[in-house]
């Protein structure tokens, strides 16, 4: 029989009482590792997520749309930054995390391994991908690790415009020319299933005990969140006059929810393993930016050192 250390009992007490865990508090190693892993993955997702949308900045079809898209992608950089800082409080440097991303050791959300092929994808990403993300992020505002929760509060505040602008982009297309309508439906068709995959494997796939829930890192299961998402989107799409590409989608009176079809799990696991359409491009782009930025970071540091030395000498 394993004995539970008093520190761990004390730790669990705090969590049960909804007290946040702060960086200098004692915490079980597994709690630290789980948080570190999850927060850094989340940070990587924000930063890699800039690429598929950034792809359309120079081609945005109006100056207003261009400004909105730039602001949105910039927000994602900010979110990545907040999250890297939150993860750093757990004792790993941002440089190490970035290195893990670039070496292929660390993962990011698979959704960003799908290509953005038309302008309508900007709308579909905002509405579906950000919509899925927000469900999770709202929940994470109450996560037990203080720095993560605070980063999420800030992110949620900024994020609420993302989903709205995505839906509005599609709304304009859905009322536009025949070509625009087709573009809109096509983007929804391509992004629907990958969005559902964002919630991760089915709850039944996992036989392991559920420490993340007990530690209140997570508060809702994958299937719960996925169902919330389907129920929300299935209603909103009516306003667009478009359809979701799922013949099994049907309102279930008894459950008070929508039934929906089976996700292609083979595709899910393949994209996770690195076989998605853009896995290589995304990582290559991040590595290139980081490597080509090395001399810039070095120069700024060298200059700061020189100035500091001058200051120290004159103060002496």
């Amino acid at each position: 029989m394993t004995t539970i250390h008093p520190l761990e009992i004390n730790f669990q007490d705090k969590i049960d009482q909804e007290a946040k865990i702060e960086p200098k508090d004692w915490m079980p190693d597994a709690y630290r590792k789980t948080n570190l892993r999850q927060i850094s993955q989340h940070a990587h997702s924000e930063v890699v997520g800039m690429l598929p949308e950034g792809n359309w900045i120079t081609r945005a079809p109006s100056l207003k749309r261009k400004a909105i898209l730039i602001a949105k992608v910039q927000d994602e950089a900010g979110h990545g930054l907040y999250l890297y800082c939150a993860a750093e409080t757990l004792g790993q440097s941002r440089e190490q995390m970035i290195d893990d991303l670039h070496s292929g050791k660390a993962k990011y959300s698979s959704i960003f391994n799908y290509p953005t092929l038309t302008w309508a994808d900007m709308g579909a990403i905002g509405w579906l991908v950000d919509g899925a993300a927000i469900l999770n992020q709202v929940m994470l505002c109450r996560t037990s690790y203080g720095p993560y929760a605070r980063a999420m509060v800030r992110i949620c505040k900024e994020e609420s415009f993302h989903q709205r602008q995505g839906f509005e982009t599609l709304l304009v297309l859905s009322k536009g020319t025949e070509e625009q309508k087709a573009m809109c439906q096509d983007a929804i068709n391509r992004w629907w299933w990958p969005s559902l995959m964002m919630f991760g494997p089915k709850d039944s796939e996992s036989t392991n005990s559920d420490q993340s829930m007990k530690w209140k890192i997570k508060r809702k299961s994958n299937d719960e969140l996925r169902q919330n998402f389907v129920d929300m989107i299935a209603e909103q799409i009516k306003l667009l006059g478009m359809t979701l590409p799922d013949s099994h989608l049907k309102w279930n009176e008894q459950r008070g929810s929508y039934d929906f079809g089976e996700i292609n799990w083979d595709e899910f696991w393949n994209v996770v393993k690195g076989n998605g359409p853009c896995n290589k491009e995304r990582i290559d782009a991040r590595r290139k930016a980081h490597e080509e930025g090395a001399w810039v970071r070095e120069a700024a540091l060298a200059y700061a050192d020189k100035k500091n030395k001058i200051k120290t000498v004159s103060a002496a």
Partner: protein
Amino acid sequence: MNFQFIKKMYYGDIPDEPGNGAAYQTKPDTAAWPLWEVFIRSKRGLDHKHAGSLKAADATMAIENARDVYTRRQEGVSIWVVESKYIHASNPDEAESFFDPAEDKVYRHPSFYELPDEVKHM
């Protein structure tokens, strides 16, 4: 200790499957900028409040980065930055001896004193 039990994955927690050909060589980053803590006064009359952290090579850059990162939506009218390594913190292990003794000093709070209603505004 094994961590098998947290293998269950939630959204945002992506399985650590070994990726295909994902064994790139990376160079260690030798030019990491130091970390800074950012404090923002959201409007005149209020205290500066901790907003978050960021990286910068020097103080000038830290203030500018704070402006770009933390005040894009008019969240501030003034910025303080301090390099994180200069922050000294109380030790959470000593929290009990630090903060609990204040618990029974109820006489420090105005509500401890009952006055007749006739005494208004004191």
